[in-house]
């Protein structure tokens, strides 16, 4: 089973906001949860910001295993900058969701560092 979603047909030429990211997430999350392959086609989209990708893609890691996403979720038509932001968002999301103590330890260290400075 396979889903091809043209992102431009859902959110238009800009992928910026959390709200638009949530719209994509609500479409692809059930498909991925049921084991379908999903390809997101970003052809025609020219502006990207991290809040969109956090909501559309990053939060999939809440309950979809990374190995599953690796083999079932694909991206095409991304501009170099869109690819750059998405890569960084995925790296951050993997740390955030797969290392439960990551954020806690970062906050602890940062707060201590800031006090020491």
């Amino acid at each position, binding site marked *: 089973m396979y889903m091809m979603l043209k992102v431009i047909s859902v959110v238009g030429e800009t992928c910026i906001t959390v709200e638009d990211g949530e719209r994509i997430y609500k479409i692809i999350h059930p498909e991925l949860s049921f084991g379908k392959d999903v390809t997101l086609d970003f052809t025609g989209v020219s502006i990207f*910001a991290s809040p969109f990708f956090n909501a559309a893609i990053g939060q999939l890691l809440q309950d979809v295993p990374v190995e599953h996403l690796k083999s079932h979720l694909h*991206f095409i038509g991304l501009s170099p900058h869109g690819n750059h932001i998405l890569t960084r968002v995925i790296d951050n999301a993997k740390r955030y969701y797969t290392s439960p103590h990551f954020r806690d330890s970062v906050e602890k260290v940062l707060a201590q560092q800031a006090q020491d400075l």
Partner: protein
Amino acid sequence: MVTIFIPRINDDPRDFNILFNIWNECHDRQHIELDFSRCDFLKQNAVAFLGGMITHIKSNGGTVSLKTDTLIPALQANLEQNGFLFAMGEDASPWDGNSVPYREDREPDMRKISRYLQEKWIGKGWLNIHPNLIEAIVSNVLEIYSNAFTHGFSPNGVYSCGQKFPTLEVVKITAIDFGIGIPQSVRTYLHAIGRPDAIPDDKTLQMAFLEGFSTRPELGGMGLKLLKEFIHANKGQLDIYSHSGHAIIDGNSERYEIIDAFFRGTVVNITINIDQKFYYLSTESSRQASF
């Protein structure tokens, strides 16, 4: 009624000190008058700041009188053309010229802001910028607006103004919110999670830029990191002023310092090189995005 004499205002740190001192002199007064007889130039940061300040005072029931008869012709023409005077209630319709319009965004309509950045600031054809660089610039600047609306809790939205300097091959934009400021946002968050929150303003700005730190519980916290990386690669400059903190990010370094003045909200001032050689494709991810 108190009369404030507006001087020439550029976008160096001392100019921001002037703006913050004007704010502290004016913001809780009911009636003020702005006199421009000592001013021959206002950079984009001053236009955005004064516009936001005036609107903020008016929205709190105060009155602000602009002594437009004290404007020199060149400055008056610029403030008419970019829509500042019209937005301040003066009978002076803006026109579509070389100035980058002054802008007020009460709601986070990011599509409109994106169009402004592309059509009125850098993508209008005045400047020869590679489309990939335009995309990267607009995307990164949108992170600022997104942060302001998400974290700033500004009662009146975001005020901004751009400027372009074709001969210098740089563009500038300033975005200002009159919200709680980054230091307050960071301290509130640290307090909520039971961490020590007695941290100087400059250190709170430093924390906001660090990888892995976000003041919100959900996934996020990438915007300032991405912007910092872009500024480094572009050899541009990013200045953020919030409370008494000042973050300076440029092509080679990042510094955080305490300034003499205090501004409760947040000011973001960005200078970006538009020469293609500063396009940072080489630093962008060479690998295809995937899990």
